[in-house]
């Protein structure tokens, strides 16, 4: 509607010889109206983003933090439960090797043979119990990864929002006429830490890619 109105004002059949002042005023009015409408559109987009969508995105990201934290702890719990069970199987199997070799070679004493039989009996039971438990824990580790589906969907939604915010901010920057701002991190930001390197994101300072680069740099520094 408003665009149509502006176009209609632009097309008003005014004879310049009869009303030059009127024409000028109308042109000014058209320009003012157009810029007011642009600002209004920007304002309403900003209001919607600031009041609803950005706070929602913050809650969504907090939920992502919670889900990833829970999944990581659940996985760590299961690993910590499984490690002693795997260790127990390995240790007992290892300790049976030597008497078993003697048995196979026919050099085992009767007393050691009786002891070996008893231990093998126990080991067969405990190895089955422990390995079944490890298997069940591994299944749970598998299921603990289901967070990625949910967090992936949430993060994709937030990425879409960030893209929209970017468009609005570019419009705002154009209105304010700002440009050419230095994006390099300040010394204070560097001292506090700026987070991990993200592929495709300009870091604003020279970064190293892997441990070998750091080792080489420290070696150059005499470490």
């Amino acid at each position, binding site marked *: 509607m408003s665009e149509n109105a502006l176009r209609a004002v632009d097309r008003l059949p005014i004879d310049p010889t009869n009303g030059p002042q009127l024409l000028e005023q109308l042109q000014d009015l058209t320009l003012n109206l157009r810029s007011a409408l642009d600002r209004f559109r920007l304002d309403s987009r900003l209001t919607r983003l600031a009041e609803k969508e950005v706070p929602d995105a913050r809650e969504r990201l907090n939920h992502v933090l919670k889900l990833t934290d829970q999944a990581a702890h659940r996985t760590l719990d299961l*690993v910590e439960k499984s*490690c002693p069970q795997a260790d127990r199987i390995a240790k007992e199997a290892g300790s049976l090797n030597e008497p078993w070799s003697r048995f196979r070679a026919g050099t085992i004493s009767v007393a050691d043979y009786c002891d070996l039989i008893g231990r093998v009996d126990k080991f067969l039971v405990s190895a089955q119990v422990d390995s079944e438990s490890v298997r069940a824990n591994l299944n749970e580790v598998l299921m603990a990864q289901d967070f990625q589906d949910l967090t992936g969907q949430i993060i994709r939604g937030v990425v879409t929002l960030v893209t929209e915010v970017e468009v609005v901010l570019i419009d705002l920057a154009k209105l304010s006429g700002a440009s050419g701002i230095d994006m390099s991190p300040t010394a204070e930001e*560097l001292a506090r*830490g700026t*987070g*991990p390197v993200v592929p495709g994101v300009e*870091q604003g300072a020279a970064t*190293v890619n892997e441990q070998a680069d750091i080792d080489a*740099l420290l070696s150059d520094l005499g470490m």
Partner: protein
Amino acid sequence: MSKDMKFLVVDDYSTMRRIVKNLLHDLGYANVTEADDGKTALPLLQNGSFDFLITDWNMPGMPGLDLLKAVRANDKLKKLPVLMLTAEAKREQIVEAAQAGVSGYVIKPFTAVTLKEKIDKILGTMAA
């Protein structure tokens, strides 16, 4: 170096502390204490008798670099081995950590092998 060595692991993420603690246990170091940033770590270091500090860099409260500087400025702690375990990968940050007296620097994501190598290297240098 004895396997009874006392480690302090400082990271704001509890999952990372658990990972490092588990890796240290696998290496035979069972005496591991945790702290979630430099502010909580410093009093623990001052009041305890820790043999090794592993710290993240980017943490709320007191970042790892400030903790490292505080350790080096403290008479009782200045010789404590400090391994920085961090995602901070800017050259000037690594240079700054080196100038502040870091003993080793491991970049995240890291492997169990890298962590072991760096700890062994630091302990080897100390023993030499």
